[in-house]
């Protein structure tokens, strides 16, 4: 059986770090804060690996099926006998995998930041925020109750807000953190209402009971949830779509992706942790957590997941090809890869061989965390070196930064799907799942995979090649051991993680899934990926006129992609022009001319009190009374004559 204390410690150690550094950090710990936080997290990571080992190889499997264990549960608020909010821990293949991913990537980021953030004056605060984030993310992945997940979901949002806005003296960072918070909160409203719908239709908030109630056709809850319909879809489908809106907001799916590129204003290690490996995949995790309900009770909601995922994958890949800020390229690349995970879930079915998409999605989540954290940290090292995010300030760095160069190349090969690196295996499985269940999505995915190879190698050549010598004369080294070690470890992960027989551990129903390697099937994606790499090499290895010509020949399309297809402008138009002008303006007008105007009229130019009284009586208070009476009579008329 799992050791409850150890699992609780995994989650609580980062919290202890947050509390300690948040309260005493600046006064007592100063520059040792980083080491303290890192050692706490090292312990937490070791415990996570230990738990994973125990679960997967010792006690997790009973009769060939991985069990869902709930070693800890505390009833926090009892609404009615069946309906309670619990704080609990669920241990199943997905949550154990996530524990490992989150602690490991977070540890790498902690170590990397020791060098990267060294000269920052708010060093302890930075580590306190990292601790808060890690705690919330760990709490999220082990949630046993849908309400608990919402709680941590919001906490993750708050800590992400704090970290994006970490450089609060930069106006762009302040704007970005606010945007991220409001867009994701908007999506969370969907999630919250989804939770209400799901809990009303299943009569419980507990994940295991909820899934059990809503997936077996003989329960009353299932029958009621399927029967009640609104606008042609069952209440359950609506609930799951609303939950997916929340997931799409967190995971930056189109059209709620607009916050992610701006979130790159945060420190780069933070982007590696939150906006690449952990928080942004929370949406995928959520859909995976409720996957049986999606797959069995609401296939149409799952279809929506598939199409939104596939569209986001392609859409983001096209934009990534045109961006010049290296972190934004990586941000769009993240969005595109999460799109992969989403549609892999979307095309999957529940159980057995048909559940390949589920396994593939989780597998890709796992490998993506490795190579995308690697790429972000590599980009961080580059930015640290040249003090700029723009590609034009880079080029020719391969000799100056040999370790970064090599590890970044491994990351690029992994994401491009070149065998035998990790991305190849997980992407093959996703493509295969799509090929078996939805040919349309398969073709989108194939094109996206070629584009991925192209833009990643465009990035690679622009940073490390493109010109012979980097003009930077003042050479201050690549960064110390603390910055290079995480790169090397993650590069090893990105190189070999693909050989893990993932289907043996994680599958939609807990049974063993054998995922073979299909040579014939792999030819097309690998060939397309290599083609993308060679085109990028031809265009960007040396400075030449080709990219300009290509951009010119694609004039309109290139421009649109460069401007991210004007999605931000569309939002701006809706919020500013439509909402502000049509609703805000009249309301403001009313307030300004009717309410304020009358206040001014009463306030100005009155010397003695009696004159003021007169004005009250002739104007304002009387008009209040008129509104009052009109309101009462209006409501009375409405309810007596119109709405009986």
């Amino acid at each position: 059986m799992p050791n409850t204390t150890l699992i609780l410690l995994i989650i609580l150690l980062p919290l202890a770090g947050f509390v300690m550094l948040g309260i005493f950090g600046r006064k007592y710990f100063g520059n040792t804060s980083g080491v303290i936080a890192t050692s706490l997290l090292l312990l937490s990571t070791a415990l996570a690996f230990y738990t994973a080992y125990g679960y997967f190889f010792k006690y997790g499997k009973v009769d060939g099926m991985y069990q869902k264990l709930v070693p800890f549960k505390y009833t926090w608020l009892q609404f009615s006998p069946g309906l309670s909010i619990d704080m609990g821990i669920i241990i199943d293949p997905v949550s154990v995998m996530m524990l490992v991913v989150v602690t490991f990537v977070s540890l790498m980021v902690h170590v990397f930041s020791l060098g990267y953030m060294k000269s920052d004056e708010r060093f302890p605060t930075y580590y306190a925020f990292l601790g808060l984030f890690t705690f919330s993310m760990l709490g999220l992945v082990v949630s046993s109750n849908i309400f608990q997940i919402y709680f941590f979901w919001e906490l993750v949002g708050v800590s992400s807000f704090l970290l994006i806005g970490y450089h609060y003296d930069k106006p762009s960072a302040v704007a970005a953190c606010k945007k991220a918070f409001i867009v994701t909160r908007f999506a969370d409203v969907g999630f919250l209402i989804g939770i209400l719908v799901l809990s009303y239709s299943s009569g419980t908030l507990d994940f295991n009971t909820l899934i059990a109630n809503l997936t077996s056709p003989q329960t009353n809850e299932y029958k009621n949830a399927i029967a009640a319909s609104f606008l042609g879809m069952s209440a359950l489908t609506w609930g799951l779509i609303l939950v997916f809106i929340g997931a799409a907001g967190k995971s930056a799916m189109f059209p709620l992706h607009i916050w992610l590129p701006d979130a790159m204003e945060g420190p780069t290690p933070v982007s590696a942790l939150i906006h690449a490996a952990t928080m942004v995949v929370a949406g995928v995790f959520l859909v995976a957590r409720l996957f049986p309900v999606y797959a069995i009770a609401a296939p149409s909601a799952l279809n929506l997941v598939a199409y939104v995922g596939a569209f986001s994958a392609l859409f983001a890949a096209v934009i990534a090809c045109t961006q010049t800020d290296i972190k934004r390229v990586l941000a769009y690349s993240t969005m595109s890869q999460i799109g992969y995970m989403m549609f892999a879930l979307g095309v999957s079915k529940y159980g057995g061989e048909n559940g390949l998409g589920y396994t593939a999605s989780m597998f890709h989540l796992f490998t993506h965390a490795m190579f995308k954290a690697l790429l972000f940290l590599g980009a961080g090292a580059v930015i640290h070196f040249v003090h700029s995010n723009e590609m034009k300030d880079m080029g020719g760095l391969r000799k100056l930064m040999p370790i970064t160069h090599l590890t970044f190349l491994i990351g690029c090969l992994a994401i491009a799907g070149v065998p035998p690196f990790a991305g190849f295996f997980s992407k093959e499985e996703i493509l295969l799942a799509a090929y078996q269940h939805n040919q349309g999505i398969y073709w989108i995915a194939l094109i996206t995979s070629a584009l991925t190879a192209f833009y990643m190698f465009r990035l690679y050549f622009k940073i490390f090649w493109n010109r012979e010598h980097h003009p930077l004369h003042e050479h201050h080294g690549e960064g110390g051991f603390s910055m290079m070690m995480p790169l090397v470890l993650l590069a090893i992960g990105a190189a070999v993680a693909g050989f893990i027989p993932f289907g043996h551990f994680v599958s939609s129903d807990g049974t063993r899934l054998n995922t073979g390697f299909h040579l014939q099937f792999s030819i097309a994606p690998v060939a397309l990926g290599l083609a993308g790499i060679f085109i990028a090499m031809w265009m960007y290895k040396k400075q030449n006129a080709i990219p300009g010509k290509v951009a010119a020949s694609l004039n309109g399309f290139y421009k649109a992609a460069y401007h991210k297809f004007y999605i931000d402008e569309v939002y701006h138009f809706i919020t500013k022009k439509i909402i502000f002008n049509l609703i805000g303006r009249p309301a403001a007008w009313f307030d300004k001319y009717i309410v304020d105007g009358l206040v001014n009229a009463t306030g100005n130019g009155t010397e003695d009190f009696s004159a003021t009284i007169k004005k009250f009586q002739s104007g304002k208070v009387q008009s209040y009374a008129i509104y009052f009476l009109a309101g009462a009579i209006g409501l009375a008329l409405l309810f007596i004559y119109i709405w009986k």
Partner: protein
Amino acid sequence: MNDFLTLMKPELVLTGIIFLLLFIKIGKGISNEHLLLLLQVLLLLNFLAGFFYNKPGSLFDGMYLTTGLIVLQKNILNLAVYLISLLFANWFKRLQHMPEFFMLMLCALLGMFFLISSGNLLMFFLSLELATIPVAAMANFDLDKKRSSEGAMKMILSSAFSSGIMLFGISLIYGATGTINFTEIPLQLHGSTLEVLAFIFFFAAFAFKLSIVPFHLWTADVYEGSPMAATSFLSVVSKGAVAFIFLSVLYKVFLPLQVLWYNLLVIVSVATMVIGNLFALRQQNIKRFLAFSSIAQVGFILVGISGSSMQGTSSVVFFILVYVFSNLAAFAVADAIATKTDAEEIDDYRGMNKTNPFLSWVLALALFSLAGIPPTAGFFGKLFLLTAGASKGSYLFIIIAALNMIISLYYYLRVIRAVFMEKNENPIEKITIEPSTKLALIFCSAGIVLIGLLSWIYDYIQSLV
């Protein structure tokens, strides 16, 4: 006789304190500082006494009712007044007519106690007047400011008007049912046009007290003009008391008209949230900002009331408890700043966390709670309200309410951004606050954090409903 003493304990103690104040005033009088301390102790004792020797019962032929829940509601209001006496200690000490101010405030509180306990329309009307008129006098207490008199004048005139409408509604109800007793009215209600008209007029007066759109126009002016202690009393204690009696009036007395009032609540609640939010968005003055945001908060309370009676009652009582802490803390910080520096604009708050970290954090916490961001108590309050509202199954209504939470998030964040993230050459100077105020602010902050997390509080409220 014995019954009388135990059942009416909160009212009797309060009356005692009012008489004590009167004697102190006529007699030699003692210094403000000592008197304030005495009052704080007495209010605290009354609050603590509220947890002992309670039993349900009724007096005077059902004119006065009390139950465990009603005692709890009175205790929440008493706690709020206690907090006001601590939070605005600085202002009270310098106030020339402090005994009078407290007499007025406690009279209003006494009116509210009777209001919550009222068992028939006569008692209800009388206590509502007792709860209103002293507040108008309190609003007038910044004697040297014209705006204060203006606000008080507006309040008294509009409340007189609303009382007139309510009295009209009450007489129609009496005409339709032939009784003023709360337990007998529902038996005689059948949904005729006359009853609908009577109910809507009756409702309009409630809506006036709660600042529900379109009966809200007086709110911003009165809030802005009044001294902060009166404003916070008005926005927290008065609102709370009226919301409490509103619950029992709707769920018990007008139960036969349930369909009517449900639809009515949906309409006015949407209007209140939307208009309160839209106006709050563009306010620059912190008092007006808090006034409009409190209008929007009332819209959310209505969402909870529209739910079923069990969930509606417990969620509203819980929300008011949270609201007491959050709103009072926000008002107290604004007051501490305004009395010392005359800064009342949101722009003046820029960069405040550099000079006043304690006040900044308390303000941030209070605003986060008002915006409903977890894990503050305000989040749980909103959540329970929405859950209660959702129990009727009108998801569109809940979606509109939830969207309004987002809009409100935007403007609450605007203040927080000004305080923490914007640069300012001349931020507000360092403000020293009274120890008792500081203590109360810490207490409020602890409440904001803990009330949500300590689940037994909500359980306790539920057990009383």
